[in-house]
């Protein structure tokens, strides 16, 4: 019943034997020694297992390992390979995370958001993170930091522009 699959894991070609019922999360953690994606609920509610599949944020616990054949999987280990990125540095500088269990998922979900929308509104950030549960921070420092990083990047690219975006009430 097992089948060998091939995919890119954090930029490197990897092969692994998987059973049809095994999730990507099981295989990453159990067979490939990649531990940054966490299991918080096993049913797609909490987002702690978020990984990037061809650049899109997905739940590792809801994707069957067999489905990733030929695709590129990025975990937090891959994101910080060449040193922490601006977003990660900003999270550290701002003392943003507390217990940190949700952090791998949040960092990846935020990275995917900023790749697709380099200048998101606060509402867009909150929506992009709505599937990543955090019980510690109240989200505010996470959202504010992502907003600040996006603004800073934009400021570097273009001329500093107009007034700061209005807070969107939730």
């Amino acid at each position, binding site marked *: 019943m097992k089948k060998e699959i091939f995919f890119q894991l954090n930029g490197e070609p990897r092969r692994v034997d998987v059973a049809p019922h095994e999730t990507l999360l099981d295989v990453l*953690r159990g067979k490939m020694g990649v531990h940054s994606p*966490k299991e*918080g609920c096993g049913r797609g509610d909490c987002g702690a297992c978020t990984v990037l599949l061809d650049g899109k944020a997905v739940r590792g616990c809801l994707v069957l390992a067999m489905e990733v054949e030929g695709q590129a999987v990025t975990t937090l280990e891959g994101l910080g390979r060449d040193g922490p990125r601006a977003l990660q540095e900003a999270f550290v500088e701002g003392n943003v995370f507390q217990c940190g269990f949700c952090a791998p998922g949040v960092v990846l979900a935020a990275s995917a958001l900023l790749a697709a929308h380099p200048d998101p509104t606060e509402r867009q950030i909150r929506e992009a*993170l709505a599937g990543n549960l955090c019980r510690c921070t109240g989200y505010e420092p996470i959202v504010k930091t992502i907003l600040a990083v996006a603004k800073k990047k934009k400021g570097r690219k273009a001329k500093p522009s107009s007034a700061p975006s209005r807070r969107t009430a939730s």
Partner: protein
Amino acid sequence: MSRTHIVGHSAIRVDGLAKVTGAAQYVDDLEFGPGLLHAAVVESPHAHAEILKIDTRAAEKAPGVVRVVTGADFPYTFGLYMSDRYIFAMDRVRFVGEQIAAVIAETPEEALRAAKLVKVAYRPLPPVLSLAEALKKDAVLLHPKLGEYQRVPWFYPKAGTNIAHWRKTRKGDPAEGFKQADYILEDTYTVPRYAHCPIEPHATTAFFDMSGRLTLWASSQSPFAQRDVMAIALKPFGLTHRDIRVVTPYVGGGFGGKAGVSMEIIAAVLAIAMKGRPVRLHWTREQEFRNTSQRQGVIARIKMGVRKTGEITALEHTLHWDAGASAEYGANVVNAVGLSATGPYRIPHVKIDSVCVYTNMPPCGAYRGFGYSEFHFGLESHLNRIAKAIGMDPVELRRRNAIREGDTLAYGAAMNPGNLLGAMDAVAGEIQWGRKKKSKKSHKVIGKGMACFWKAPALPPNASSSAYLKFNEDGSMNLSVSGMEIGQGFLTVMAQVAAEVLTVPVAKIRVETPDTDRNAYEWQTVGSHVTWGCGNAVRAAAEDVKKKLIATAARGTKRKAADLYLQDECVKSRKDASFSLPFRDYVISGIMQPDGRFIGGPIHGTGMFMPEFTTTQGDPETSQGGHPNVHYTVGCAGVIVEFDKETGKMDILKVALAVDAGKAINPQLVRGQIVGGIVQGLATALYEDIRYAPDGRLLNPNFTDYKIPTALDCPAEIVPIILETPQPDGPFGARGIGEHTMIASAPMMANAIEDALGVRLKTMPLTAEKIALALKGIDYEEVKGDSLGFCFRGRPCDYPFEVGGGIS
């Protein structure tokens, strides 16, 4: 107090980089190699039943299974404060989901599959799912052996009943107090159970090696308390403290749920059964909900008398708690409330009865707030109602009764410093208290609410802390403590305390999570006490190091110690400006003498702390005479909310919370606690809504049906306010604030609802549905259906608060 350079500044977290790069390891991230075994437990489908027979034969023959373990193998009980919790259910099961047996197999799938093959024959017993039933004369008993359990001396279980503990506090003469009152209000409030919901469920891997040494890697707030509880419970195997080692890597959230011992002891005995191979047990999200601990539900009757001028003359506060199937930890929550249910007010005549009741629901225990969130809901709601009745501003009413330093507490000791009035002023200013705000939309209305809070750590009188500090060759340091980094920033704050004393940058101090074999002792990380208690121990250790730095420098350079001081990682002299001896030049290798000898050696220091002024030896009938609490932290919170008058839906426009931290050692981390605590508190106030079926089954043990906040469910604006009235016995004046930040949420919301809409909700959570029903004149209690939030049904106002059988 002299100026500080590191304390009081927002140092970067020592665990920050590890947590955003995936380097931080949590217990299930640890690798144990191909020998690792996996366990699954067999759980009770009944709330209360006698176990007639357990047939494990089919499971034992299943593929991959190496062993099936039941209570017959480990017939022991355990508990932090009282040994009323069973490692495996023995003669009977006491809640749906209780562990009866465990299967150990080569893979998790094989263990799960085989667990389903264990056949258990039951004889159902009448379940105790109502507090009134539990307390009546001749009630069905959950613990016929209640009188035999080991317990701490300040618990008063009533053998032959379902009462695990009854804390009574008596001060003055309430009858006389009520006579002096111009107005008396009496009413009942209910607060259901809640679940902690750390994103990381409990997990433990245990290994009993061939030499007889038991090691646990656990997701825990309490490595040393766990070692102690296990050494007591597992004594029959010849295990002593020396033989047991608990290692706790980073913890993915605790909130009290990972305090004490729950599933960890199951992993421990499974490892004992499988000597030589590590065994992993980790809870699913569903198990996390129902078989660790929950927050207790409570029904509370408050009778309060006031003069026309607003002074509170008397308070009677009676609380009946739904403790669930065991009370080994929950009874201490009940105890804490029994001592402190006056709230932060000076009240001359007080009668508090806090009663811990066994029921056939999952066990309960510590939850951020430790009972204070629960009783403040009623108390702070009650104060607003009294203010309205006597025509006084509710903040003014609180001002007139606010507790101050030196006031006599309900149990007789004196109140510590704290700026409650300042907190009220700050919050009132921030939400423009007293100024009505109008919604721009015709179907919406805006209300404001405020509530005060206080809380003390609930600790045994000998809950002690210790710390070790040592230098490395380059002048960097290792700090060893065993408070747990559960997200609050403990490790960083401890590094700051040491850094301040020794002038070493925080970034040069490595401080890591505990290992009971190697780290300094800490009782456990609960009660928001580690900044205070362990901070004192770290400060003492740093002072010890400082003394040695100076003594060694004096001896090695032939100077007077009295002239020397520390600055910028060097020893300097007040007498000789040219003298500067960097720590790195001598803290390991010593100071070279003209003749080639070296003076000094590796410099290290130790410190300890014991709250020596506390005692729990008060009178059991009045609580007078003891000094059970070390100190209280006070504060206030306020909210501006916009309501939809049709649907009851709420938008929180602004929340402000002021807390007197004594000294914020790291202000950014304090603000982080405030913001996180407010959001967690608002969730319990507004929509976390646990439901049990009438037969005791938990109906919503997952995040689809038990809603915790997402990034979209937050207030539009949160304003954290830090006040600093130094705690004389705290490190640099600090006291704890972590739990306090969620206490005021529910009553401040209830008060805002009444302010905006004129309806008073007395049953948590304060859902939009309840508001909408109230606005339509429908009594929620009439339409609430048959699911339970805790062991109570019916109308709160009809609950008799009686205890049958002449027990008192």
